[in-house]
């Protein structure tokens, strides 16, 4: 059986640093610390759960959940992410889609995508040498209806089952969820940040109560975290993958200048 050796979650956007230089640097450093821990866990494969931002997927064919299958990925290049290729893990992705089909998840396999900032920004920091094979897990909260946190949590559990039951001995798997925290995109509340909501969800996760994210409804997230807050479904995915593991808050900044809460957590995968 394989093993999940590291797991984390982080916001995946960035804003202009002028006027908020110290906060911006702390955010970058926080993601960088998460990256150091993930690299130190020496993963053979890195699953990154994110939502596409209608760069690859479109409203013409609304695909709520998908898995990327490719030998190599090339970033779209938004948010200033360098267009440098990094490896995929075709075999892992293909086998996971097949495993999921037997466990109540008919995942859409996608190949010709160019990951936008949701995946590529954290990857550029975490996977700094671009040598860890990446499997994108698209939890597309931009779709209607958006994938629920409950469904995403269950998918995380399916990933853990796949790693433990379907992967080779000694395979080391890292999981990184990206997205959130509270932000309102092109809504009357744009610019609002709900730090209390952000911190309460992060506290649930690091205290081993990540399953509680599965209870978050679409309506409650829209009210408390905005439409961008729907991306917390990826954090629910990570929580499903790690179960009752605890962790620690790595960074949080109430970035009203960027119209979003920015935060990251790292799970302790050595804890019993």
């Amino acid at each position, binding site marked *: 059986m394989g093993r999940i050796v590291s797991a984390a979650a982080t916001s995946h956007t*960035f*804003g*202009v*640093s002028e006027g908020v230089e110290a906060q*911006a*640097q702390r955010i*970058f450093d926080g993601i*960088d*610390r998460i*990256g*150091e*821990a993930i*690299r*130190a866990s020496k993963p053979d494969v890195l699953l990154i759960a994110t939502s596409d*931002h*209608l*760069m690859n997927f*479109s*409203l*013409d064919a609304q695909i709520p959940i998908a898995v990327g299958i490719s030998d190599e990925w090339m970033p779209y290049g938004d*948010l*200033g*992410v*360098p267009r440098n290729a990094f490896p995929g893990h075709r075999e892992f992705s293909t086998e996971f889609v097949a495993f999921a089909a037997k466990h109540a998840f008919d995942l859409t396999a996608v190949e010709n995508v160019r990951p936008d*900032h949701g995946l590529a*920004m954290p990857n*550029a*920091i975490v996977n*700094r040498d671009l040598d860890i094979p990446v499997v994108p897990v698209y939890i597309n909260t*931009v779709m*209607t209806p958006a994938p629920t946190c409950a469904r995403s949590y269950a998918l995380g559990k399916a990933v853990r089952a796949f790693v433990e039951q379907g992967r080779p001995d000694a395979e080391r798997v890292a999981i990184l969820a990206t997205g959130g925290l509270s932000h309102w*995109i*092109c*809504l*009357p509340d744009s610019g609002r940040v709900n730090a209390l909501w952000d911190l309460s969800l992060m506290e649930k996760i690091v205290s081993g109560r990540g399953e509680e994210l599965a209870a978050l409804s679409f309506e409650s997230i829209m009210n408390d975290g905005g*439409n961008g807050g729907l991306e917390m479904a990826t954090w629910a995915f990570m929580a499903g993958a790690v179960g009752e593991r605890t962790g620690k808050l790595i960074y949080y900044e109430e970035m009203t200048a*960027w*119209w979003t809460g920015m935060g990251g957590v*790292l799970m302790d995968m050595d804890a019993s």
Partner: protein
Amino acid sequence: MRASRRPPVELHRLISELVRNPEWAARLREAPDQVHEAFGVPEDQRAQLNADPRKALRDLEVHPNLQFKYLGARGLLKLAPASISPFLEKRGPGNGSDC
């Protein structure tokens, strides 16, 4: 978005095309109504967009993420475009010793 209301599909197609074809983005900035017409955006919607793009997108219930792209293409976003690149370039060596 209310299920009973027809979504602004022409605008959705237009904005989705901006992502795939940057030439449309340039044309939208130079002559927005010509692009609206090219994608079959209804006249009443075009009038709204010409009067107040931000309000029109909201009133027409354009997908929020596509509103963001439309406003960005027209240079009307209030949030300035950002880049992670300077931070990537100046970071120190990562040796896994910090965690």
